């Protein structure tokens, strides 16, 4: 009974919110330039999805985000593992890590555009830089959180370095790394879209700015909706990776 209620409750709440939005816009005579009604957003969305050019923008955004994310993931894990294992390395790098964490990464976007131009490269670099830190810090944390008892088991079995890495360190850190990736993928999209705001002529970030300049607020909302859907898809992909890669971990299980 309760499960069924929960099933109905979420869509019902959404309908109530949309209804309120529609009612408010009509009753208060809000200009469609400021806040278009949901019906207009929906028809804008349908129109946008029907355009071939929209799919080019979606595809560019996906490509740049994924490329940036993959770079961030590879670098984050490859640098994070030794930093987590070697205390002297962590101590040496720590001031630099903290400094580069504190710099607001979006402030670097203009710089990257100067360096890498208006094409895809600057977007990929921005995505990668922003997504790197959560993946890196979680990898370090994961490697440091390996249980002493598990290490003792490996020592008592006279395990080689390779066996320790593949059988203990990597699987033990995997839930942490995936958590970092979950945050990282969302940040990668943000980085990509922000970079597209500032330079270039492709991607959903570019489309947002274009609709804003054209005072097409309904289409602006439609692009936001599209971006949200892309974000959802990425997030779901990491969730699926969790279930496949770490089915033993409680975070990889379906909620009861």
């Amino acid at each position, binding site marked *: 009974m309760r499960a069924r209620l929960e099933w109905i409750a979420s869509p019902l709440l959404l309908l109530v919110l949309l209804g309120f939005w529609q009612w408010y816009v009509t009753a208060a005579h809000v200009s469609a330039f400021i806040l278009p009604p949901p019906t207009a957003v929906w028809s804008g969305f349908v129109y946008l999805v029907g355009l071939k050019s929209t799919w080019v923008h979606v595809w560019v955004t996906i490509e740049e985000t994924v490329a940036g994310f993959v770079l961030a993931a590879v670098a984050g894990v490859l640098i994070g593992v030794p930093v987590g294992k070697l205390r002297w390395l962590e101590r040496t790098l720590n001031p630099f890590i903290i400094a580069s964490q504190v710099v607001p990464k979006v402030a670097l976007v203009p710089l990257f555009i100067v360096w890498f131009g208006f094409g895809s490269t600057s977007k990929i670099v921005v995505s990668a830089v922003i997504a790197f830190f959560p993946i890196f810090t979680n990898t370090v944390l994961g490697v440091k959180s390996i*249980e002493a*008892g*598990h290490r*003792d*088991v490996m*020592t*008592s*079995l*006279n*395990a*080689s370095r390779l*066996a320790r890495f593949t*059988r*203990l360190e990597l*699987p*033990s850190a*995997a839930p942490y790394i995936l958590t970092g990736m979950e945050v990282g993928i969302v940040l990668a999209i943000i980085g990509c879209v922000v970079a597209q705001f500032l330079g270039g002529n492709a991607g959903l970030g570019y489309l947002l700015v274009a609709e804003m300049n054209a005072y097409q607020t309904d289409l602006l909302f439609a692009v936001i909706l599209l971006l949200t859907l892309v974000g959802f898809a990425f997030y779901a992909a990491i969730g699926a990776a969790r279930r496949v890669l*770490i089915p*033993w*971990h*409680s975070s990889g299980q379906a909620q009861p």
Partner: protein
Amino acid sequence: MSSIRLEGVRKQFESRAGAVVALAPTDLAIAEREMVVLLGPSGCGKTTLLRLIAGLIPPTEGRVQVAGRDLWTGDRRDPAAVADLGVVFQDANLFPWYTVERNIAMPLAMRGVGRAARQARARELAKMVGIAGFGQRWPRELSGGMRQRAAIARALSYEPSILLMDEPFGALDAMTRDTMNLELQRIWTETGCTIVLVTHSIGEAVFLADRIVLLSPRPGRIAHVATVDFPRPRGPEVQADPKFAALCADLRGRLDRM
């Protein structure tokens, strides 16, 4: 030939407050197929002594020999000597990312044993320790006692001649503990290995041991050695034997005077 031999083994830990002697120079010889229990209050160095025998920590001074081989040469462990040792810890320490069967077979996989042979051996071991049919489960799906059974199976998988156990049943409830002690006696008989077990339970020590090594703290050293000669296999009824109670009382008295 003795299975384990310690000569003048001393262990000192360096801490910020200075050096702490965890184990004063100690000599100990353990015979093949013997069941020796290291008993003592916390801080008496019994776990340190076991970890020294296991090669998990090097001695500050002295020699540790396992099956006639020196365990340490300089700061390198002899892999052949280590291969003669199976270690069971207080926590089962199963790897949560492997099924129970893969946990049991992991040491074999690391030795390059083929998949089919590994699986067959893991099943055989699971049966021996009483968890047949649970091989495909995750460790978290097992009870504490069953996890510890799996840990024993893992330690026995590569057929070490010596099984070292650090308070293996310390985290279990009293009833499971009694069952596990009976089971351990059976496993010991079936495998014919030497067992060195650490505990702070006097009853457990008297029930299991051929010989009890009593350690006292500050610094850790051997205070007394008691031989226990109840016939094997021992059942729960041995605990009703007046000699059992007398031995427990004697050990209790020695521990209280420490």
